[in-house]
């Protein structure tokens, strides 16, 4: 019953910018790869990191520089608005394998124009054949690891097909010092070296490479300034001419010099963002706590009258659109695991400051507003919510954004995030400054190096391997540890031991793969990224080589939590506790994918399920996941202790394709459950019960984050009362120690599809006004009533 307010004036520009992104088809962009190749041909014999730096500088000097219409914040990593950048030195062969399919593949297609294909075949391939990190990896995968990888038990190629990412560069330092300031710091450090001492030549080469990339960045921004001036000279519209002149002035000043204004800070930040993406195509270069480090610039502009809140909002919105332009290029399999060109540039608002005080400021609200205004897929907006310190007004704004149904913001429990950082070995003083990274991982600006998601483990496969004595159901081959014939397990404990045995073996194989990746990546330095990691400069050691202040190992990600828990629970309940089934009967039914065993499937489906606040189930979940956290943490990489996390991105779907029927009642080849969420349609006690079950996992030990997708009834997000209750639910979630939640509000389209194709939507539960039912079982008239109720607001279904 609200009157919609008139949209602010700046929205006209934002909508035009936004339309351009939405209308542009993602294309392969090989310009960088060509320049890199040419540079490498000219620098044979020089140290690798210097060659990388020179190639980067050459890209800065030669790449296409475009300022598009309406832009206030400028910059682009490549030559196209929505380009997929190929890092030839890392993984040229990925494109080689997909030349025929890349334009039309199912997940994340990139159009490849014929002239680019020609360039690839004539210039890029001939030079890089046999020299990329990906080829090194393929040649070195440990044997046992390869078998599990080939059968979809683990996924471990991710880091071989794209750059580091999963990091939060030191933006605050960059804004404060400017590239030139940092370069002076490098010079000073270099002056202390004595290349007659062992090891110092290597450092000298490294610091020289930092100076080369700094030079490149300054030259590139100068090229943007020149382009802006050129456009201004021919621009007829007076207002746009002024804007272009302002762009010119800004690009002449930053990132070379310290930012003086809010606008310069945003431009400097985005400029650097494009540079590190240009250096290495990778997901999750996170701007991090923008509301904190941009605050001084905004506050001083506001105080001096240089800017109005609306001007600032427009600039933020412009930046938000820019962050939606780039598209992550990855191979077809990796794209299945993280579909949607996922750049995962995670921006964070809220939380506490270095003294533990409420850190919410006006910019926190304005960044939430920017996501409401722009409603594109980037930046990934995250909230650090401190139950004790952040105000209700902030929480309400967060819920209002949730109600738009874009899936943003990702809501993080601040206390758990802080504890996760501490569990990684970061002292509390700095852990207070943590930021969400990528999907739901944890990070620390300018100080922390690790792969948050080096390998994924398929927990559905774990169940299958435990039931089949290490045999893969799909292929029939023995690929894992022989943990005993399930028919001979006399007790539930014996079965549980087999499950744990599989977890041990598979974790070990993932760790072996991690060591190989670490070695391969020693030959993948990234001086442009390292430039804003203060300790990399001080130590003269690249980010890739462990130069950052904290190196905290690699993350191993678990996928299929609910499938594992529900399957183990079903075996315990049906075979050992009630004796309703023999192991023989269960195995036969699973082998036949329940065909002809409908009664067995019914028993499996009716066994207690995770997500219903049933202590009998949830205790087992606690035990299993504490075991897994212990197991993963028992290993180290050359860069620190291994770390666990639970975040599927979209990996639960391809993993599901490798797993036969499970005791949970899940049919063969179907997707696994995502994150720590219950399996779809099995949680029947509402959101409170889901949170209680989810809280049985030791979240703070899964330091790479835990992801929860949740459904709520529609009125929870569309009425004032509902919004208040949602706030209560989120606060409760924090009290319970759950780390993250994200709400997906699905529009009526899904219900209409379910009405038309009921066989595909058997598990679709609807909760409308205190009423829960399987949608497809309702009569058409009632279905129509429910669809009708979703017209104004999304309805949440799952």
């Amino acid at each position, binding site marked *: *019953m609200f009157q919609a307010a008139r949209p602010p004036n700046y929205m006209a520009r934002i909508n035009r910018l936004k339309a351009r992104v939405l209308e542009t088809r993602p294309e392969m962009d090989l310009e960088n790869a060509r320049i890199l190749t040419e540079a490498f041909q000219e620098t044979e014999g020089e140290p690798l990191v210097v060659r990388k730096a020179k190639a980067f500088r050459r890209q800065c000097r030669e790449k296409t520089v475009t300022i598009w219409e309406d832009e206030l914040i400028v910059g682009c990593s490549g030559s196209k608005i929505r380009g997929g950048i190929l890092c030839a030195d890392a993984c040229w062969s990925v494109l080689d394998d997909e030349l025929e399919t890349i334009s039309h593949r199912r997940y994340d297609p990139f159009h490849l124009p014929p002239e680019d294909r020609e360039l690839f075949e004539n210039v890029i391939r001939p030079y890089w054949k046999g020299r990329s990190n990906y080829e090194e990896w393929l040649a070195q995968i440990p044997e046992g690891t390869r078998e599990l990888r080939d059968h979809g038990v683990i996924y471990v190629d991710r880091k071989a097909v794209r750059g580091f990412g999963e990091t939060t560069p030191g933006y605050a330092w960059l804004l404060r010092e400017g590239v030139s300031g940092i370069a002076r710091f490098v010079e000073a450090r270099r002056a202390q070296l004595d290349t007659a001492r062992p090891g110092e030549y290597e450092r000298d080469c490294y610091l020289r490479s930092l100076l080369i990339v700094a030079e490149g960045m300054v030259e590139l921004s100068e090229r943007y300034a020149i382009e802006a001036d050129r456009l201004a000279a021919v621009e007829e519209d007076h207002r746009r001419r002024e804007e272009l002149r302002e762009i010119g002035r800004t690009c002449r000043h930053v990132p070379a010099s310290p930012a003086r204004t809010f606008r310069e800070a945003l431009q400097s930040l985005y400029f650097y963002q494009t540079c590190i993406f240009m250096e290495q195509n990778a997901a999750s270069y996170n701007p991090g706590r923008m509301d904190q480090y941009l605050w001084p610039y905004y506050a001083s502009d506001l105080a001096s009258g240089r800017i109005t809140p609306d001007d600032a909002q427009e600039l933020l919105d412009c930046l938000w659109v820019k962050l939606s332009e780039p598209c992550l290029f990855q191979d077809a399999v990796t794209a299945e695991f993280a579909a949607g060109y996922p750049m995962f540039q995670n921006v964070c608002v809220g939380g506490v400051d270095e003294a533990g005080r409420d850190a919410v400021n006006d910019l926190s609200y304005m960044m939430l507003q920017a996501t409401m205004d722009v409603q594109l897929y980037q930046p990934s907006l995250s909230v650090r919510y401190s139950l004790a310190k952040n105000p209700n007004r902030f929480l309400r704004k967060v819920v209002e954004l949730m109600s738009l149904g874009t899936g943003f913001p990702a809501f993080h429990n601040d206390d758990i995030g802080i504890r996760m950082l501490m569990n990684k070995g970061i002292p509390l003083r700095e852990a207070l400054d943590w930021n969400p990274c990528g999907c739901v991982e944890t990070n620390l600006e300018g100080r922390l190096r690790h792969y948050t998601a080096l390998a994924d483990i398929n927990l559905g496969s774990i169940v299958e391997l435990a039931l089949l004595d290490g045999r893969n159901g799909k292929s029939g081959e023995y690929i894992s540890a022989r943990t005993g014939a399930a028919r001979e397990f006399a007790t539930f404990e014996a079965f549980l031991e087999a499950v744990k045995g599989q977890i041990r073996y598979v974790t070990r194989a993932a760790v072996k793969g991690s060591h190989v990746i670490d070695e391969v990546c020693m030959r993948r330095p990234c001086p442009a990224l390292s430039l804003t990691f203060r300790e990399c400069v001080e130590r003269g050691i690249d980010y890739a080589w462990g130069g950052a202040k904290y190196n905290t190992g690699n993350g191993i990600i678990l996928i299929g939590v609910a499938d594992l828990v529900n399957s183990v629970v079903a075996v315990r309940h049906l075979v050992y506790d009630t004796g309703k089934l023999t192991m023989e009967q269960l195995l036969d039914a699973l082998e036949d994918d329940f065909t002809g065993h*409908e*009664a067995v*499937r*019914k028993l499996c489906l*009716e066994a207690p399920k995770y997500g219903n*606040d049933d202590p009998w189930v949830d205790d087992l979940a606690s035990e299993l996941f504490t075991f897994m956290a212990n197991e993963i943490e028992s290993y180290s990489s050359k860069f620190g202790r291994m770390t666990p996390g639970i975040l599927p991105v979209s990996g639960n779907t391809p993993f599901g394709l490798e797993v036969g029927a499970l005791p949970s009642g899940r049919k063969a080849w179907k997707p696994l459950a995502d994150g720590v969420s219950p399996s779809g349609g099995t949680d029947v*006690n*509402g*959101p*409170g*019960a889901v949170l*209680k079950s989810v809280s049985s996992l030791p979240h703070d030990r899964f330091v790479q984050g835990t992801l929860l997708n949740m459904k709520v*009834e*529609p*009125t*929870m997000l*569309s*009425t004032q*009362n*509902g919004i*208040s*209750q949602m*706030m*209560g*639910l989120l*606060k*409760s979630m924090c*009290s*319970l120690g759950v780390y993250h939640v994200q709400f997906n509000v699905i529009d009526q389209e899904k219900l209409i599809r379910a009405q038309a194709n009921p066989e595909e939507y058997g598990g679709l539960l609807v909760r*409308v*006004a*205190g*009423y*829960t*039912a399987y949608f497809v*079982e*309702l*009569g058409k*008239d*009632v279905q129509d*009533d*429910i669809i009708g*109720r979703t017209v*104004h*607001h999304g309805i949440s279904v799952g």
Partner: protein
Amino acid sequence: MPAGEALTGSVLRIERSSIHDGPGLRTVVFLKGCPLGCAWCSTPESQAPVPERGYVPELCTACGTCVDICPARALTPSRCGSAIIRDVVRCELCFCCVAACPRDAVRRFGTFMTVEEVVREISKDEVFFFHSGGGVTLSGGEPLAQPDFVAHLLRECRERGIHTAMETSFHVPFDSVERVLPLLDLLYVDIKHMDGESHRRWVGSDNSLILDNIGKADRWEGPVEIVIRIPLVPGVNDSDWNLQAVADSCRRMGKLKEVELLPYHRLGSHSYAALGRDYALKSLLPPSRERIIERTRYLARLDPGAPVKVGGGFS
């Protein structure tokens, strides 16, 4: 063990995290058994006081699994072979067929639970009650049809500091009301129709006991708050006259917190089919959004002595 903990009640289901049955996030305990039979009832499976068996013929393939398993031999395939017929006299309501049916075509409505069991379920949500200002709401059916059980249950909730509410028809002896008033923070009472004859026609009995109980509860010396609810059923009780009469009656109350309109919906109509019962209002359409807003404003203009709201998730 204090007396009453082993007491059992007939419970239809317990629903958690509800936002429509009182302040905050609430756990709603639906009790089974109701002295009334409203034509528009959206939970017909709550009317009978004991557990019931539901059957969804659309899902049934007449595979015969339940026929073979039924210990009372109460089930037989229908003559045409497309459904299963239950002999209600023979059926002992053991619900073996519910567990056996591979298609989930047979359902069980309701179970007996002890006070302790229900309290254990309610207590699971204490953290949500704390952060949202929520609590427990006893609903039905008619909770006061089981006054002993309900009184013990409410006392246990009070001991745990849980906010208590009840949704009742008030079609019960005042003795039962008096027992629970001191244990309640909030009371929802329906006025389904102000005209006794219409009330009898649509609900099955006269409204005098209900109106009398409202008056007595309102004059009771304790601190309970009362919300009067009107199920807004098109053509039945949405006339100007009825709303005026409700408003007049409300205006005389001292404990009135709110008047709430609950727009009629037919989301429970499939439950009638499952129970093998006819739904009397099959052709009645829910009121339009415009009509709901118009009736709400009309009632508010009559000034019933407290704010008028629309419930049931209307936005």
